[in-house]
């Protein structure tokens, strides 16, 4: 048994279970655990199995184009990467943006946050708790009663409605292509919902599909198009012409009204469906409070959604910034992403080389040089790894640390920091939910807490979205139609050398882009993405990362069916497309689970 410096006990003597790939995430990831003879996880190893190379392909490009490249990194947080990128370049070149641009960017970022949280809960995470096959056994009338009890204001609740959905589902399942619901462990005793609750939640899975495609129209309106909306260094690319009719690209009253109606729909869905579902489903799993991991010890957020343009001071951010270490909630440290001593990336257990053991590099000085080698105790071959050796290099993900600490990032981290700082909206939400569910504060530090924090945050983001929409409309009515500052658009106005950093809170956590510009071109570009923090491998001191920590002590009902592992890993909403790269070698789609 080994005790890690960050307070966890690891024992790799039991059976080894390998899950590869972990499905229903963006990108590619593998997980190995050791379980004891009771089926309890005693050691966890998480690895990004794809090489990351975004930084190197941006070298020599025009910094004003970087957003377009970062938008193509993955299919989920496109807009968040683009926003982070334009912020980094603006920071480097001292470019300020007008008030309207700040409001519009915030609306787009909040919109993406809400969209991502809903899609994550219903389309990537729900199937860890909800069993759609069991829903076929539900009584539609009882489901209707349940729906009305859970959320009296949700209009779609008749027995006939649920019968229709059930029939559609039945037809879909009977057509032999379980499609979306394949690869499930539908007879595993880890599923605790009644058939009626399963049918209700599966129905909302469909309702969420309909909603999500409406929500993204906000990006089409402000970004000119979707997918891949346009961004602009210095502001936003959409002009405002409030009295215009049908002008291409310009924001007019008709379009603002559409945005307003989408904001209302977000509110309705989150309050009538999403939050009540989290409470209802969570109610079945109240005794399943595994998965806390690092969240009760060390959490980090950069903060986001500035009230005023160009002001990123902690007090001006609606989503809180701060760092908590060693479980001391009484002290929230401020975070300075420029300080070379704070954020550093280590590669002692990653397939990269810095040339010096135990060395950490600040992202401005970051190096991405691959070095693929397996440890002496790895099993298998270089091209077919059966078992990793976590004592050596074992992941394509680097290990970022804040002042040497492994940190969890994401909605739960943001909510713990907000709660600890006494952020009024967040505190009220958290206390309200715990009261409703009759749970102590300690229940927050769990897989369920992570999932609940995301739902609460979606609701808070709806309110912020409305706030910035009102602010935008007021500003326009007062005659301010400025959306971009192009004073420093031309490279001749730039210094010969400059460096900057852009930060956002992506749906899955703290995201930073660090850029160095020389002679009008990108000299170095480093992204430290949320899943790099959460999915980080061990560091030289032996601290384990958030994914690994969260799996420890979890009891598996059937070790050969990793429902519990998926449940907890999914609660982070992992996105490995940007933390690492490349596809599985043989295109293997089915997860293999090997018990050794």
């Amino acid at each position: 048994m080994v005790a890690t410096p960050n307070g966890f006990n690891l024992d790799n003597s039991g059976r080894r279970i390998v899950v590869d790939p972990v499905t229903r995430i963006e990108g590619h990831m593998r997980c190995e655990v050791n379980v004891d003879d009771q089926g309890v996880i005693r050691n966890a190893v998480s690895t990004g199995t794809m090489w990351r190379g975004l930084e190197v392909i941006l070298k020599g490009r025009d910094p004003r184009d970087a957003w377009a490249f970062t938008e193509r990194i993955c299919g989920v947080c496109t807009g968040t990467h683009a926003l982070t990128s334009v912020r980094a370049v603006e920071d480097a070149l001292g470019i300020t943006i007008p008030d309207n641009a700040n409001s519009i960017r915030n609306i787009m970022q909040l919109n993406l946050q809400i969209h991502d949280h809903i899609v994550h809960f219903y389309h990537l995470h729900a199937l860890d708790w909800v069993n759609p096959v069991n829903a076929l056994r539900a009584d539609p009338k009882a489901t209707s009663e349940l729906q009305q009890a859970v959320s009296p204001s949700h209009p779609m609740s008749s027995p006939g409605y649920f019968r229709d959905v059930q029939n559609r589902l039945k037809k879909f399942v009977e057509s032999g292509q379980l499609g979306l619901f394949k690869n499930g462990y539908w007879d595993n005793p880890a599923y605790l919902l009644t058939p009626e609750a399963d049918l209700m939640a599966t129905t909302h899975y469909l309702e969420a599909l309909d909603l999500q495609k409406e929500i993204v129209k906000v990006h089409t309106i402000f970004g000119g198009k979707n997918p891949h909306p346009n961004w602009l260094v210095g502001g936003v690319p959409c002009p405002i012409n409030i009295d215009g009719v049908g002008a291409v690209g310009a924001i007019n009253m008709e379009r603002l009204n559409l945005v307003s109606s989408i904001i209302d729909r977000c509110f309705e869905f989150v309050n009538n469906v999403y939050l009540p579902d989290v409470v209802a489903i969570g109610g079945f799993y109240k005794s399943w409070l595994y998965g806390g991991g690092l969240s009760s010890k060390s959490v980090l957020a950069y903060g986001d959604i500035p009230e005023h343009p160009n002001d990123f001071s902690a007090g001006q951010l609606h989503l809180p910034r701060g760092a908590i270490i060693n479980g001391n909630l009484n002290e929230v440290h401020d975070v300075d992403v420029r300080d070379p001593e704070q954020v550093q990336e280590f590669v002692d257990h990653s397939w990269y080389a810095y040339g010096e053991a135990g060395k950490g590099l600040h992202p401005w000085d970051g190096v991405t040089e691959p070095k693929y080698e397996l440890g002496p105790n790895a099993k298998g071959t270089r091209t077919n790894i059966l078992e990793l050796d976590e004592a050596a290099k074992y992941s394509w993900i680097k290990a970022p640390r804040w002042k040497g600490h492994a940190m969890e990032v994401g909605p739960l981290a943001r909510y713990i920091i907000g709660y600890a700082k006494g952020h009024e909206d967040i505190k009220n939400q958290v206390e309200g939910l715990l009261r409703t569910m009759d749970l102590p504060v300690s229940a927050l530090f769990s897989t369920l807490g992570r999932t609940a924090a995301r739902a609460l945050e979606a609701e808070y983001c709806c309110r912020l979205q409305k706030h910035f929409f009102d602010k935008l409309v007021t500003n326009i009515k007062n005659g301010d139609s400025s959306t971009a500052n192009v004073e420093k658009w031309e490279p001749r106005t730039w210094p010969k050398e400059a460096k900057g950093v852009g930060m956002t809170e992506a749906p899955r956590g703290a995201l930073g882009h660090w850029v160095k510009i020389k002679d009008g071109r990108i000299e170095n570009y480093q992204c430290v993405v949320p899943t790099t923090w959460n999915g980080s491998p061990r560091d030289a001191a032996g601290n384990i990362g958030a994914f690994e920590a969260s799996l420890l002590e979890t009891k598996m009902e059937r070790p050969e069916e990793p429902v519990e592992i998926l449940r907890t890993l999914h609660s982070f909403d992992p996105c490995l497309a940007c933390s690492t790269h490349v596809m599985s070698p043989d295109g293997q789609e089915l997860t293999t689970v090997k018990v050794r």
Partner: protein
Amino acid sequence: MPASPPKRVLVLGIGNILWADEGFGPRCIEALAETCAFPDHVTLLDGGTQGLYLLPFLEQADALLVFDAVDYGLAPGTLLTVRDAEVPAFMGAKKMSLHQTGFQDVLATAQLLGRCPERLTLIGCQPAELEDYGGSLRPVVAAQLAPALDLALAELAAWGVAPLPGQSPVEGLADASLRRDAYEAGRPAPESACRTGDDRFFPGAA
């Protein structure tokens, strides 16, 4: 197959332009938009790796033509067209790309919602190289762009679509900095920017 021509047609290119031949789909759309002006009921779209985001576009189409890099297990650069019920199997048989919510899932979701295009055609090209991050189309695949467009135009003609010489609006396309010429011109050399993965993806290359 329905007899009357489809009312709304979506021509979609999917894949990640940052991954060498994975960019085949979007590059087809780009080339098509540069040479053809389509009537209003036809939409051209670079879908990138967007997964579920593409659902609303699918729902609004009666006929869907997709360009994608597909692993048919044939010689690199081979073009193959499949239609209707065959399409999902080809797109899901091997997970070709980073679109983890594979396009197969998007089609299945559209079906579950009862709003899947009635006609589906996939024009796929066998890639030569995928594991070159920041790379571009290999010559053997680039050479298939024009033949792929010919196949597409024949398919569209069968659907009653007759484009005029000209250009299509750019809303569905990538930002100018990502268009093929600009993208290739600004690309660092493999020596200065390692673009490969590890030898699990290159057996024998170690």
